[in-house]
């Protein structure tokens, strides 16, 4: 992008994301409702939150890359390539081919390994450490789930709240658009989009975003329709508050809890969708889905090669389960009904 190398761009984006997250935390901490909700959530779902945190950390460690510092004789790595922290930890662990977890020799042919006994999850067909691949998959999953949601949700809000609040022709148009998109089976639409736009990572993410925003758009439109009729909105309007002001100050805060819940739930849906896409051959490079797809045939060999798919499958399951549990916890904590009973 404008002469920037890919890894520099990625570094900047990571920094921006962290800055954004820190700002968000500061804003949220000032509001009693969110502070209490966060405390409650921490109290109830500690383990799941910690697990998600670990995945986030791993993803973060794999997001910042820099050049240099590579020993001269490293196998399989260009001396001037940008490497992340995770890359560097696993430098020099490349083997020739398959090896079982903790094994000292290769799987086929029993040749001695470069690093006997150190591969926790063995190596794949190219000799790469499976643990290394699994860790790198974390970043990809977070990208697919998190980044896509960060794009889809604001898009859905703009259209949904706009349609619900202003009504008229715009609402008719949005409603028709939603109906049309919702009438196409998600996976099929996804496939159609990717086939049309291309199989690169960006296209896949865009396609995932397009197929996911519809549900939340419909929801935010319905909620806005309800909120628009509330008395204090009419009062604000009578006081002369601008339309935009009303939307920002009265409508959006009431949608905030829905946004959070939708974000979390969308995340797991997206990651799971990508797994299916990977199997269809149109997934994102380096994802756990690709690992699983690639490792399928290994199960039918004799003797069975199981560690590849076990590692990727467990990593995937771990993240999705943790996110789902946290998502449920958030939903319980932010549910207006349970909030009422606190007073």
């Amino acid at each position: 992008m404008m002469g920037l190398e890919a890894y520099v761009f990625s570094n900047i984006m990571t920094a921006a994301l962290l800055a954004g997250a820190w700002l968000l935390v500061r804003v949220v901490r000032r509001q009693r409702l969110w502070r209490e909700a966060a405390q409650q959530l921490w109290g109830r779902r500690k383990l799941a939150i910690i697990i998600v945190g670990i995945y986030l950390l791993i993803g973060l460690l794999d997001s910042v890359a820099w050049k240099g510092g590579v020993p001269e004789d490293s196998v399989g790595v260009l001396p001037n390539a940008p490497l992340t922290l995770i890359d560097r930890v696993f430098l020099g662990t490349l083997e020739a081919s398959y090896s079982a977890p903790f094994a000292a020799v290769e799987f086929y042919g029993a040749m001695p390994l470069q690093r006997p006994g150190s591969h926790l999850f063995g190596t794949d067909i190219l000799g790469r450490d499976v643990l290394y691949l699994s860790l790198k998959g974390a970043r990809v999953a977070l990208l697919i789930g998190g980044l896509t949601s960060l794009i889809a949700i604001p898009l859905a809000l703009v259209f949904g709240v706009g349609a619900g609040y202003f009504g008229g022709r715009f609402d008719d148009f949005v409603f028709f658009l939603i109906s049309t998109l919702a009438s196409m089976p998600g996976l099929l639409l996804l496939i159609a989009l990717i086939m049309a736009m291309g199989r690169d990572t960006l296209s896949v993410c865009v396609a995932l975003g397009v197929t996911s925003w519809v549900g939340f758009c419909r929801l935010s439109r319905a909620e806005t329709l309800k909120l628009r009729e509330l008395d204090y909105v009419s009062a604000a309007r009578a006081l002369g508050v601008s339309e935009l002001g009303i939307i920002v100050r009265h409508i959006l805060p009431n949608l905030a809890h829905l946004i959070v819940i939708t974000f979390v739930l969308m995340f797991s849906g997206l990651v799971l969708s990508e797994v299916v896409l990977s199997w269809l051959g149109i997934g994102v490079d380096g994802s756990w889905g690709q690992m699983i797809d690639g490792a399928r045939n290994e199960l039918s060999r004799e003797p069975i090669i199981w560690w590849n798919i076990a590692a990727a499958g467990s990593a995937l399951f771990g993240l999705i389960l943790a996110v789902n549990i946290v998502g449920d916890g958030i939903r319980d904590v932010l549910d207006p009904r349970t909030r009422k009973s606190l007073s």
Partner: protein
Amino acid sequence: MGAYVIRRLLYGVGVVLGVLFLLFILFFTVTKPDDIARRALGEKAPAEVIEQWKINHGYDRPLWPWQDWDDNLLFDHYRRMLTFDFGLSDADDSPIIDRIAAGMGPSLALTVPLLFFGLVLAIPLSLLVAFFRETYIDRMGVFLCVLAMSVSMLLYIIGAQFLIGKMLRWYPISGFDPTLLMMPRFLAMPLIVGLLAGVGGDVRFYRTVFLEESERDFVRTARAKGASETQIMTRHILRNALIPILTNVVLAIPFLFTGALLLEAFFGIPGLGSITVDAIAANDFSTLRTMVFIGSLLLIVGQIATDLSYGLVDPRVRFE
């Protein structure tokens, strides 16, 4: 009620036209006919071969109506799709409609039992869990559901094929036999896997519906009348819960189509899902276009059916 039906049908027609437009955009403008030709013939094919291929497959005409009102791809696209004249596959030149006709049977043989048994399994389970709300049964049930929902469908399929097909050898791993006798053997595994993968989400959703309904005021009225908990559950809660459950069932229909996509491909069932998967691998755009259209059509019909069936279950809608 009559006016409502007509309005709903008309809107459905409008949506169909909208879907076709979107498909046109995707398959004719975002991907250009040149690209499609190249993918079918190979990158290095000479220009004349590409042109000929385009002429054979009908891609050589102008795209938009204002370029040529009598002969343009947009009108052609609409006309042919709406008359079910799907043409030939981009990959192997076989008539698409024949493949669809052949594929409908096996697909239905899988998805209809899947839908039916899914309900038979999920509703009693969720009633049970909702009945024992806030107890260990409930909490354990919900946790199991979340667990089941967190596993990718792919892993279910691979796991099932591995465990049951390879290790225990109870059922064939894949294949299909259309004769009535042999069909169950081949459908058993995809059916079991499909049910397992779906039951978690279904039970959790139905449980929420039942719990919400059980908190309504009229339940308190029924209790004050002296009704027992079972009577309340069957006579009041269930009847009201039918409405959101009905929506969910119909909403699940397209997912049967696509979830069955995986099941069909993995278990070798020659249904509509398999056709779609093959089309992706072969870059067969015309078939893919058609499959998305068919899928959407099914979904739209299903949505209209749900909306209209509300009139049966919810008296508030009936007299609109």
